[in-house]
């Protein structure tokens, strides 16, 4: 088993994911429409909603559109992460997962490749979204568009790992609606994606605590700071730790002898 095998397997997985993404035009468009609807419709209605308080990384007053842009980037990655886990469930139902899993390479490597593939796709979506929002007068310093890349890789991996972990629990595609209700929505709404922590604190201290410890919030804050050329160490570490935990759990979950698949009677 040499490096070439690893390379080939990884490109096989990433290539398949990219190919899927490029050929399924509806998926590409729908992935973009979701954040754009939020930006053009939801944010427009809340233009003055933020009131007044300048919080880092911002140095002056901003419109609501500007505030939620990093949150919507997080949303793209969150949905993308969940979508690739959905495809895992589908793969398992269709049997193509078995082909992947019997590949003579470590399972963690295969899962990581799958994650990287999903993250790559989400980053493409994010840059297209940023391009469109540029014409909507949402401008960040040019360095920010470079700094955001490593942040997107980490946040994409973390959210993807969470998706993988969830997919190891789900036996049938129909159960995915539960993920929507119990994971995506609470994660998205109980975060700093739509409103800053200080605003949440005004209404509920408990909610703001939940939001603070929500890994999605930390990923969004990491992206927000990176977009303005700043490094948020705490958010970065938190996201990294969350990734490691989710990934480790997903690897265990996908282990046929110990994982969830055994408990539920195999894939």
């Amino acid at each position, binding site marked *: 088993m040499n490096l070439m095998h690893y390379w080939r397997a990884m490109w096989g997985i990433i290539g398949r994911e990219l190919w899927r993404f490029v050929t399924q035009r509806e998926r590409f468009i729908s992935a973009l429409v979701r954040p754009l609807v939020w930006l053009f419709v939801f944010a427009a209605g809340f233009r*003055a909603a933020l009131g007044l308080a300048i919080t880092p990384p911002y140095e*002056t*007053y901003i419109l609501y559109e500007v505030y939620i842009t990093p949150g919507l980037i997080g949303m793209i990655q969150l949905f993308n992460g969940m979508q690739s886990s959905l495809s895992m469930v589908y793969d398992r139902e269709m049997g193509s997962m078995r082909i992947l899993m019997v590949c003579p390479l470590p399972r963690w490597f295969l899962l990581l490749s799958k994650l990287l593939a999903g993250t790559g796709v989400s980053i493409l979506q994010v840059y297209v979204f940023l391009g469109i929002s540029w014409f909507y007068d949402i401008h960040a310093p040019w360095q920010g568009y470079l700094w955001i890349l490593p942040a997107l890789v980490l946040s994409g991996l973390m959210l993807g790992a969470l998706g993988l972990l969830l997919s190891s629990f789900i036996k049938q595609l129909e159960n995915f609606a539960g993920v929507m209700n119990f994971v995506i929505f609470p994660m998205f709404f109980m975060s700093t994606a739509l409103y800053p922590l200080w605003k949440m604190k005004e209404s509920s201290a408990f909610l703001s605590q939940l939001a603070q410890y929500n890994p999605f919030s930390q990923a969004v804050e990491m992206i927000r700071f990176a977009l303005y050329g700043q490094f948020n160490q705490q958010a970065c570490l938190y996201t990294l730790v969350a990734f490691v935990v989710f990934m480790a759990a997903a690897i265990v979950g996908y282990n046929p002898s110990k994982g969830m698949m055994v408990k539920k009677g195999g894939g």
Partner: protein
Amino acid sequence: MKHKVLIGVLTATLATTLLGLARAETVFVTLEKDNALAVVDPAAGTLVKTVPIGQRPRGIALSPDNKQLYIATSDENTIKIVDANSFKILGKLPSGEDPETFALNPAGDKLYVSNEDDSLVTVIDIAKKKVIKKIKVGVEPEGITVSPDNKWLISVSETTNMVHWINTKNNTIEANTLVDPRPRAASFTADSQQLWVTSEMAGTVMILDSQTQQVIKTISFEVSGITNDKIQPVGVVIDKDRNRAYVALGPANRVAVINAKTFEVEKVLLVGQRVWNLAFSPDQKHLYTTNGVSNDISLIDLDTQTVTKSVGVGTYPWGVAIKP
């Protein structure tokens, strides 16, 4: 070749340093409620210090030699002369009751004060610290300015809705122009050809021709997401080449950027709450705004036309003056 590169690098470094020095201006802001003067370093974007200055300071101006500040301390019924470096109070001018806004003539030897409650404009000889004349104007005079060619002294009265054209030679009113309700501030273009006047209640800016004293254009504003009653223009400044004018829109929390040739509103910039007064940096590359309710000033980069920073200064920032 190596030498050329070295010289190039050195020149670049020197140029950068000089540019840095060129932006070493100081921003002075009067704090109406803190009874103080805030000193801001705009390059660093920080409040350097706050100096107690007197009761309810509002109007502020810098002498042409940049050595003295004139600050209207409204509740002390005087205009204080303050050293622009040491902030020592050098003297007081007899401004009359409740001075708010005032203007210096281009030579810097005369000061004209609006006395809102008495419907007067007081003319003061700065060197003698004496009142030369009190000119009866309309009810509640507010905005006041002198044309750069020193021909006209302008006083706008808020309640009479009038612009008074006062001849600076004999200090008498030569003409009056009726304008939109509650005119607040007035500014001349650098060539003295046009006078821009803001109307707080109509939400407009009127451009008057200095020759005919007639309104030649009225500009209205629209800000998406903001109701029209919130758009209350106050401060107005026009750049020296008459390319662009900037208008503070009060509770709309925006500064409007107007093409001064076509009179079209090009964009609006989000600043702090209740923006009233504006001042250019000496090189006119930056604009500074005082935001009365959010207790800060906003720094605008005019090359990119973006608000780069808002700096907290103290309670109720009112007037702003820039020292090179």
